[in-house]
């Protein structure tokens, strides 16, 4: 006898991500990932001016907006073979870096740490012991006994005011929660502090991008930030100084708080390292270009097949020829009525045909991207593995530092191959955040030095030829490899397809029946309590799922997200 669990944040409503799992003897034996909404912006773009596509595409989402703007201008520039000035590269890179640092901090502390941290344990915590533990992990100045005491008192005050309910929900108190009261207090205190630092990172994004969410400073051919050190109204040294101050604070938080915390949690839950690997083909693209032509990059890309790190195939450009040739999207199990089950994005079709959720037929709006016909996992783990396997110095440095920390807490040597599961995905995100924090300082320096040489150029105007041209713009976004594919005919968009990170990871089964990364990662996960499937959330959350378009209906009774059916 097996049990079917449907995890749907809004089971009453159509929208978002839905996960169905079949559980046998306390372990998952089948899983389906389903997106219950259609995007449709690709259809809107047909016939439009390619120079404005980025303004539309960043409306894919209200959270990760910047990434779609960036991939879009890069796609059109690729089609035109248009170089952009160094200042434009550095300004774009600083926007991408600040956005990604914000996103990684928020993902760990505010969206998923509470899958592992139990706030109900905090009243039992000793602030002095917490401070001693914190000091053994990091030199962060806000790790004093007074900070922890204040955080504990806040929790107690909320409890005393009769509002304990706000702390009792989630899956706190679940049998799979294993941290000591002190570690719970430490993590929760940093959860509160992280609110400040994610905001500072966003401020950098807004200062350079003019606003956020949805930056306004891009153009096909560069950026429209005016640079003049004699004018306060432009990107001046004063403004750059403010950006540097904000970046310094975020960098310190990532290196002294985020990395120690995520590695400590991974070490304390070492028995969970083995769950959630799933698809072991890993894909990442090069990013943070260092020159106008985009020949040198600070983040490495490549493809690893079947977990064979030694056989990593490195990419040399942002949209490497092998990447251009290898990507296709399969709609065998998605709600589309396309002419073929599998199509290359430049030939891609988006003809919607909704049928109800059917495990054996169609069950999602997400297409199934494939690399050389195979499913691939994307995200920080993929990028870290590609960098580690190919000996990228910055990746190796931070991965080894993280492995040392995890090993010290776990009390045994933890190998790089143990980072492939759900906790490893969190650890790799911390490693990537640390890499980005170093690179943020570097790219700020590159921008200032380049301006210092007297170069204030930020834009090369695009010229559209008669006839048909094709381009692909890539970006290694916080959730992984993003690619926008555009076909331009006589200066107008003829076809547009976005293959986004969550499409790779939330992909359904394909023609051959191969499941996508979410689906595969859930197999063999333990389920202690089918009514409260915390373990499913832990694994799915580790991918940082992002489904655009939330609903906001207030439910005064709280949300019961799991439906359990005995089959």
């Amino acid at each position, binding site marked *: 006898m097996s049990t079917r669990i449907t*995890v749907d*944040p809004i089971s*009453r*409503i*159509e*929208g*978002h*991500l839905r996960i169905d799992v079949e559980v046998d003897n306390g372990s998952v034996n089948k899983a389906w990932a389903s997106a219950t*909404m*259609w995007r449709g912006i690709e259809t809107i773009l047909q016939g439009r001016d390619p120079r404005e596509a980025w303004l539309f595409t960043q409306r894919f989402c*209200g*959270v990760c907006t910047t990434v779609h703007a960036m991939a879009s201008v890069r796609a059109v520039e690729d089609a035109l073979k248009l170089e952009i000035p160094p200042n434009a590269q550095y300004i774009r890179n600083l926007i991408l870096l600040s956005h990604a640092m914000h996103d990684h901090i*928020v993902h760990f502390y*505010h*969206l*998923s740490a*509470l*899958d592992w941290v139990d706030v109900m344990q905090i009243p039992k915590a000793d602030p002095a012991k917490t401070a001693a533990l914190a000091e053994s992990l990091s030199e962060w100045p806000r790790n004093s006994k007074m900070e922890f005491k204040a*955080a504990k008192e*806040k*929790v107690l005050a*909320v409890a005393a005011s*009769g*509002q304990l*309910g*706000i*702390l*009792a*929900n*989630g*899956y706190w108190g679940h049998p799979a929660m294993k941290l000591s009261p002190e570690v719970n207090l430490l993590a929760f205190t940093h959860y*509160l502090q992280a*609110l400040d630092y*994610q*905001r500072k990172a*966003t401020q950098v994004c807004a200062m350079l991008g003019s606003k956020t*969410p949805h930056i306004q400073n891009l153009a096909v051919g560069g950026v429209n930030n005016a640079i003049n050190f004699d004018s306060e109204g432009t990107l001046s040294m004063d403004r750059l100084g403010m950006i540097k101050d904000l970046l310094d604070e975020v960098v310190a938080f990532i290196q002294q708080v985020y990395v120690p915390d995520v590695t400590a949690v991974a070490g304390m839950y070492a028995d969970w390292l083995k769950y959630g690997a799933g698809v072991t083909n890993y894909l990442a693209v090069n990013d943070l270009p260092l020159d106008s032509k985009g020949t040198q990059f600070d983040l490495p890309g490549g493809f690893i097949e079947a977990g064979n790190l030694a056989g990593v195939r490195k990419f040399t450009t942002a949209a490497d020829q092998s990447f251009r040739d290898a990507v296709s999207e399969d709609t065998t199990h998605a709600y589309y009525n396309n002419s073929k089950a599998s199509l290359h994005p430049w030939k891609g079709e988006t003809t919607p045909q909704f049928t109800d959720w059917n495990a054996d037929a169609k069950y999602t709006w997400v297409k199934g991207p494939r690399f050389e016909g195979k499913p691939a996992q994307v995200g920080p783990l993929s990028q870290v593995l590609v960098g580690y396997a190919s000996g990228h110095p910055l990746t190796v440095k931070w991965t080894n530092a993280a492995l040392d920390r995890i090993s010290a807490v776990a009390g045994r040597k933890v190998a790089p191959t143990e980072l492939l599961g759900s906790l490893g995905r969190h650890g790799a995100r911390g490693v990537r955040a640390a890499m980005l924090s170093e690179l943020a300082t570097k790219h700020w320096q590159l921008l200032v030095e380049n301006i210092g040489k007297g170069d204030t150029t930020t834009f090369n105007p695009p010229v559209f030829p008669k006839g048909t041209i094709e381009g692909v713009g890539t970006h290694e976004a916080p959730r992984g490899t993003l690619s926008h594919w555009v076909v331009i005919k006589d200066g107008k968009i003829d076809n547009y397809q976005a293959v986004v990170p969550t499409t790779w990871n939330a992909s359904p089964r394909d023609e051959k029946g191969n499941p996508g990364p979410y689906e595969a990662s859930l197999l063999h996960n333990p389920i202690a309590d089918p009514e409260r499937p915390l373990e499913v*959330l832990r694994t799915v*959350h580790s991918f940082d*799922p*992002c*489904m655009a*378009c*939330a*609903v*906001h*209906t*207030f*439910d*005064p*009774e*709280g*949300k019961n*997200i799991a439906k359990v059916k005995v089959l």
Partner: protein
Amino acid sequence: MTRVTIAGIGNILMGDDGIGPYVARILEATYDFEETQVADLGTPVMDFPDHLDGSEVVLIIDAVDNHKEPGSITVYTKEDMVRNGVPVRTDPHSPALSEMLLRAELTGVGPKDAVLVGITSKACNYYTRISGEVKRAVPAAIAEVLRQAEILGVRYSKKANPQVPDIWWDTLGDFAAGLILAVR
């Protein structure tokens, strides 16, 4: 100085879920409030508190799922909103309303008090219009928001020259057009 924020929240593409923004935009177009900002905040994420900077109180208009007749108006206090706590996080939009209030409690940043004027929804499905039952509740919702604003000490008046509300996603139905004429 902004002392109070009147915020409509919800997803305008999801049928009745868009009622918060709908009511906020009518209020914005037809009334002047003192020391108060009226805003359609959509489906806020981590930026929710940033929109409320400096406000002591937030008066929220939102769709609710409380098993009453569609279009029923119910007022919730902050205690009501936080009683059942933060729902399990499933996506970046989840930690919005109750978590924002919890955070204000724990960090001291953000409004100290909150009132929610809830309109019971009928159906929140992708790209459907607001249902008739919920649309007919708009005058009652507006009256309740004004009553709550008064309790909070907000002074307001009808605009001498009301504008047409910018409800671009839902062509102005008979009801909204009639309301604008009545205000004039």
